[in-house]
């Protein structure tokens, strides 16, 4: 069995990377994810982890280094935040296109502006459709677990895709939580060594990433589509195995909190859901029929599971912690995804979009109370009126 420690999300992730026994790590500093790398640097310096620790010349360089390392057959890890994430934009598609299952941790940060150190999911959501596995951890424990889960899912021969293991900056990356660090034997059982059949090896020479003619384009993209789709089954299997070996059972797609007989619910992802839970609990104590649904895996998006989870409510408030200007619905990415999942149910479930926590602001208890208040009103009257609300200005 493992040991329990009180550590931050950053240190939890670093511990998982160490347990995954990676060969190549590539760093570049940007808050708040930096803590992951400084902890890994310490582990390498202290001889706890045998890995090449490469100082990238920027995030673009980071993703390039791990691209090369993974193509050579190594398990590779990198990470970033905020504008660092978007600076490396060129590399995300080549990495998934080359089917290299490396991992990138993202501890969210706002883009510029406001450019502050605060958390926003905007950075990681910019990357959402590049053929990577993606999801958010809500606690330091889950940050550790996601790293192990994602390596296993991504490296599965049926998948072979890279992964963004996301956690909210500060609210997860810098909050201390009780984390059970599993022991090496458990991890070995869960995560077999990385083996890819297309690697750079002069004993079996291959040409990787040749330019294709247009007629090959549809087939190449369809292969990636199939890989993302086949990840669905692997994600479920991996979560089952994870629960069996480590004893922590996560719902692979959506976590439901107090949704039994709930009439209204919040749908969201990431660390602010912990705040939301306390509000749900308080409202339940007051007799309100409220609940929360937390999305755990964002890509591939679990359309069917979200639909099933949300269809039972009269009104759902979708909390978007990202700035998406001009988007349909006037709120954020999650609202559009949730509405797509509910498509066909007619007017049965009313959906409202709440943009909240931008710039790294807390989403406060008071704000969640206001959201539930609005949802209650909509559920009661059956009428929505304005459907998107930018907090704290519009609610």
């Amino acid at each position, binding site marked *: 069995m493992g040991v329990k420690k009180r550590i931050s999300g950053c240190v939890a992730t670093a511990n998982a990377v160490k347990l995954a026994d990676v*060969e*190549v790590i*590539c760093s570049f500093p940007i808050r708040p994810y930096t803590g992951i790398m400084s902890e890994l640097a310490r582990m390498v310096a202290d001889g706890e982890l*045998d*890995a*090449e620790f*490469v*100082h*990238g*010349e*920027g995030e*673009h*360089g980071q993703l*390039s*280094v*791990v*691209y*090369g*390392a*993974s*193509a*050579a*057959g*190594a398990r*590779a890890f990198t990470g970033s935040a905020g504008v660092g994430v978007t600076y490396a934009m*060129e*590399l995300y598609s*080549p990495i998934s296109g080359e089917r290299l299952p490396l991992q990138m941790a993202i501890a969210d940060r706002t883009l510029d502006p406001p450019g502050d150190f605060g958390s926003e999911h905007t950075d990681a959501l910019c990357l959402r459709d590049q053929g990577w596995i993606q999801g958010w951890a809500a606690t330091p424990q889950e940050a550790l677990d996601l790293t192990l889960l994602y390596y296993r899912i991504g490296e599965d021969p049926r998948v072979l895709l890279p992964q963004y293991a996301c956690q909210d900056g500060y609210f997860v990356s810098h909050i201390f939580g009780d984390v059970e660090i599993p022991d090496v034997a458990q991890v070995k059982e869960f995560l077999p*060594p990385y083996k890819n059949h297309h690697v*750079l*090896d*002069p*004993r079996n*020479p*291959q*040409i*990787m*990433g*040749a*330019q*294709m*003619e247009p007629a*090959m384009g549809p087939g190449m993209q369809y292969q990636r589509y199939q890989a993302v789709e086949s990840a669905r089954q692997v994600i479920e299997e991996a979560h089952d195995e994870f629960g069996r070996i480590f004893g922590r059972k996560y719902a692979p797609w959506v976590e439901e909190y107090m949704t039994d007989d709930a009439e209204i619910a919040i749908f969201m992802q990431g660390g602010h859901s912990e705040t939301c839970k306390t509000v749900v609990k308080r409202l339940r104590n007051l007799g309100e029929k409220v609940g929360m649904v937390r999305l755990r895996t964002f890509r591939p998006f679990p359309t069917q599971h979200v639909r099933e989870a949300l269809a039972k409510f009269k009104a759902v408030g979708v909390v978007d912690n990202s700035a998406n200007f001009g988007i349909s619905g006037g709120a954020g990415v999650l609202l559009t995804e949730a509405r797509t999942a509910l498509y066909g149910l007619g007017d049965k479930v009313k959906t409202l979009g709440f943009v909240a926590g931008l710039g790294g602001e807390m989403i406060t208890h008071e704000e969640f109370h206001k959201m539930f208040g609005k949802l209650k009103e909509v559920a009661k009257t059956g009428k929505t009126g304005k459907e998107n609300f930018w907090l704290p200005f519009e609610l």
Partner: protein
Amino acid sequence: MLEEIKSLKKVPEEEYYVPGHRTCAGCGPALQYRLVAKAAGPNTIFVGPTGCMYVANTSYGCGPWSVPWLHAQVTNGGAVASGIEAAYKAMIRKHKTDAKFPNIIVMAGDGASADIGLQALSAAFYRGHNILFVTYDNESYANTGIQTTPTTPYGAWTTFTPAGPVVPEGKKLMPKDLPKMMAHGHPALKYLATASLAYPLDLMNKVRKGLNAEGPAFLYVHAPCPKGWSFPSDKTLEIGKLAVETGMFQLYELQDGQYKLTYRPKEQKPIEEYIRLQGRFSHLQPEHIQKLQEFANQRLKEVGLEATVPSVT
């Protein structure tokens, strides 16, 4: 250790850059690629940043290398090679592979080296990865249809530096000197050389010295481009030779902090002999040619060669 090749008869007969690629007839970069691959041998991995040597070699889902090759972006050849090198180091150390440490060679164009790829190149050399970075300098972004790079010479026509009444000389700027940039300021550098495809043995031996060095090595190859420089396809080597004989390009190496000239032209030829064969210079007026002569003379002096052709006529 790769041995010195003493004569043409001793050049390995095996090809690792095999027939079958869509480079133009008479392509200088293709010829130097073949020579580099020959000198390096079978235990080699090539990294190919976007450029002519990616596009013309791999279009249609195939390629002409009998050794492994990986595409890199035009931006990141140095970084991708760094990752491969780090991976092999760690995998060998941790007994995760029984492969021998390979030659890791980046084959980058001048734009992918001196311009958009400079950051990744410099970082790889700063970090000291055991790689060979080859720049094939055809003095333009050629696969996009001949646009200027920082190494395009003064006075050259490109589609981004056309000559016209207002800009009679075409390209107005003096080129970056990438080998000198690499030579000074990268303390981990183990070997650096310039080479020309017109001097094949010299080129191949420099490849081998670079690969034998335990650490980053840089090879800068002058590679004339019939299409971009506008000359007949059979003149590639002649133009390569003239570049060296006129002082437009110098052959030297740098090892253990010492420069060494590897070829000394017997007598410097006037710059006109080099430019008159190339359509890209056909618009130049005497005052522009004089500036080019000054440029060549200055470059010669920098490596300790006497310029014998006066720059003022």
